[in-house]
């Protein structure tokens, strides 16, 4: 059995010099998904707090760093349960490994966070429905359930650069 769970979380995008981004992984206030040498996506409970703290962290190294609340730009869904990896294998060529990976999932670019017991997919909000529908179609026969309502996502693993 697999559950396709809609999730929500706050996101802050930080675009700055790589040396500045390096500093983001130190604090304990949130989890930074490093998507490029000069870009990190910080997952947090409170975007406002992260905006403030990340700006303070980045500014000494890169005063021109861009820190933006991008929460609305992201869709997050999780595949939970024993068959999660089987469902995932039908929609993505990405190799699952602890931590984060980037690649195509359901035909769209996504960040894949493999956590104990679940696979979390982060991708552009404009594809929220399309990816959900693709997973349900390609995973047909694998017993996918959709529980009600979004759950809050607090990343279990810290994805260090």
């Amino acid at each position, binding site marked *: 059995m697999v559950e396709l769970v809609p999730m929500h979380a706050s996101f802050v*995008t930080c*675009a*700055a*010099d790589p040396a500045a981004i390096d500093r983001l992984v130190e604090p304990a206030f949130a989890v930074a998904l490093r998507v490029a040498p*000069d870009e990190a996506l910080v997952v947090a409970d409170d975007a406002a707090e992260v905006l403030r703290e990340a700006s303070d962290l980045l500014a000494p190294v890169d005063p*021109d*760093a*861009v820190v*933006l*609340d*991008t*929460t*609305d*730009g*992201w869709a997050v869904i999780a595949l939970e349960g024993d068959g999660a990896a*089987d469902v995932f*294998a*039908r929609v*993505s*060529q990405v*190799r*699952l490994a602890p931590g984060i990976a980037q690649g195509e999932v*359901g*035909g*769209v670019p996504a960040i894949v966070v493999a956590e104990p017991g679940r696979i979390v997919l982060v991708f*552009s*909000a*404009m*594809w*929220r*429905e*399309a*990816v959900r529908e*693709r997973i349900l*179609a*390609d995973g*047909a026969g694998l017993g996918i359930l959709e529980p009600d309502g979004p759950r809050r996502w607090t990343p279990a693993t810290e994805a260090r650069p």
Partner: protein
Amino acid sequence: MPSIAFEGRPVPFEDGDTVAIALFRAGVRTFTRSIKHHRRRGLYCLTGDCANCLVTVDGVPGVRSCVIEAAEGMRVRREGGWPSVELDLVSIADRLHALMPVGFYYKAFVRPRIAWPIAERFIRRATGVGTLPTSSSPVHRIERNVHVELAVVGAGIAGLSAARAAAEAGEHVLVADERRVGELLLPGTDRDAVRALAEDVAGLPNVSLLERHTAIGVYEGPIVPLAGPDGIVRVHAGRVVVATGAVEAHPVFPGNDLPGVFLARGAARLATAFGVRPGDRVVAVVDSHEAIEQLRVLLSSGVVPVGVVTRAALPEDVREALPHLLRDGRLVRAGGRRALREVELETPGGIRRIEADALVVGLGTVPRDDLLRMGDGLPVAGAGEVIRPGCSFAEAAESGRAAGRSPSAWASVAGFAPVLGRDGYVCPCEDVSLHDLERAWAEGWRSSEILKRYTTATMGPCQGALCSRHLAAFCSRARGRDEPPVLTTARPPARPVALEDLAAGVHAIVEKRTALHERHLAAGGVVAWSGSWKRPYRYGDWIDEYRAVRERASIMDVGTLAKFLVGGRDAARLLDAVFPTRIEGLAPGRSRYLLALDEAGYVVDDGMVLALGEGRFALTSTSGGADRMEAWLRDRVDRLSMHVHLVNQTAMLGAINLAGPRAREVLQRLSDDDVGADALPHLGHAAITVAGVACRAMRVGFVGEVSFELHHARGRGPHLWDALLEAGRDLGIRPHGLDALDLLRLEKGHIYLGQDTLPDDHPWKLGLGWAVAMDKGDFVGRTALERMRALPLERALVGLRFDGTPRRGTPLAAHGRIVGRVTSCGTSPGLGRTIGLGWLRAVDGVFPDRVTAGSTAATVVARPFYDPEGARLRG
């Protein structure tokens, strides 16, 4: 007893039978008709290598009947032949070889030109291949991805040994075989050993064994796609061991394709695994160690050949069991019409003819190495017979262990056993005989690659499994020099694969939606594709939507626009170096129209640039081009080594355009910020709060009225949309879709990139020269523009006023010549006539001012058609 439905009659089968065996038991000897000469073909290899037994199973053509297991109710019919395979009138072709020499279709039907299309249809129908199903109901096949350290193709002794060696070293291994383990092996200790090993290996936690999964190729990665019962398994492997074994050498002699001629492995399998005699009077030609073993097996199954030809030393027990042994005989010819009737042998005492209904030939093996050769340059190694044809069981096991242990166990492909006689079919799939090869060679096609293309040898369903080495050997021999034979390139698919399997995992464009999608549907919007987005075209009366913009107030979802934030020390410098627009000096709170050019000076995109202050800029560009624009900008940032931070905000920002003469009034009702013409003039922008939603309001003018493009956090879109509609209800506000927008922008003479442009349009051709600052520094496309500007325009996009109503795409003519094309047109309710855009070519250096679009006359007029001074826009 269970049965299959074979051409309308039930044919019983026994447990474990393949379709081919069931049919053979039922007396079927002709399985198919050959592609060109319509010769009868019967069971031959029984190892899945040749194309002699292809049938249509449950509507799927080209299925290897010797591979697929029979199942209750399966509908099977043979392919080719007219009216049937048994009574095939087209088989007259077998008497007309002289009329259809090799490559005849390249030389015949050339004149008159209509001859080939007609002949081609006939030829295609006459070929003995199956018919594709025409049902339009899609068959959904799944694709799944598997990641392993080692993929092994072939679960024989070599493959399983490789798998175990790697698994014991801790690697994750996947082993695939197109059959069940040991299925092709004869009963005995070898088969028992392979099955025991398979059980052992499959029991290891880090190994998965997939039976009935056929590897169809080796791709870069390496990736090995397997066609299985449910669809495709795409195996991503660190390395690959190919242990596909060897195929029995295909002997070439006259009559080698007659039903009744068997390769030794096939005949032995028939007799032992299925208890079916290949014939009543069997002649055997055995020259390899393996073939002698098979002869022994045949003997023990009660098949006593009436003649055996061999040059090998036979073991005592085999020799004693044989009544007739011809030590110095040579196979010359097989005779018969419907099937084998006699075998002609050359002996020291002269030609001997033996009446026979089965000829079993075992001359040795050649590697089944196409997958191995596809893996050239990739971490792909061979093991077992595929690299050492004819090797012993123990040697194959050892070779497998070596390949499994060592990631660098590379192996060269050895073993040529071409057996070319006087004539005969070299490539049975494509009906190419040795004589055909000789003729093509004489015509000048003198390499294996070019001979292959001319004769189509090796290009049939078996993909050269039988004949690729013959072709290479033929060239080598014909050249008469001591050159090594050159094999043609191996390419996927290595085995026949269904089209729906190739389509597994392939989907249409992934649909993009804005946050307002549900609002559009609830309002009865006609929502359809626009590029990769789903967008509303209209909500009902689209003419009233148009009027709402021109006369009242209206909103449109423009969240699909590409949106970027450009920050960093060099943001302004980058934009100036990339776009022809002047960025330097653009004051915060102001915006400019932006063109994007490629190096050739051609327009690739357009949009707006907004100075945000503190050295930051916002950028918008066309809806379909966000990914391309982002990639293009990032490439420029890298190339110019600039300090720039680029964030693609397309998904995170929604955008609603509020437009119309009462638009400001609506906006002011929802905002405490000053949105008057002084605070927010045309091409100005400001951060304001609308209905509690933080927005960046931009005064832009695509529709030609006072407009506020409100960019906001995507999630607040529905709330803002509802609030605007509510606030403007008494003013007659309503949303408009793409249909109204098309007319609104056309009245203003604004272009749609892609629709109104051609790939080689520079800004002056489009009337956009004003958007290019040639007096600033370098930018992408500048050098090309300097050159092109010096030349007179030979083509230009113009405004057109029509007397009638042509369709988009109608050619424009002047002086009896086609001079252009209508790219946009529509009937303007405001102007009361049909207007459009189109491109025109200059005639003798002059652009015509009167043209015709089909039967409609048109006048070239100045753009814009509506509010040329822009008073309404700026208001």
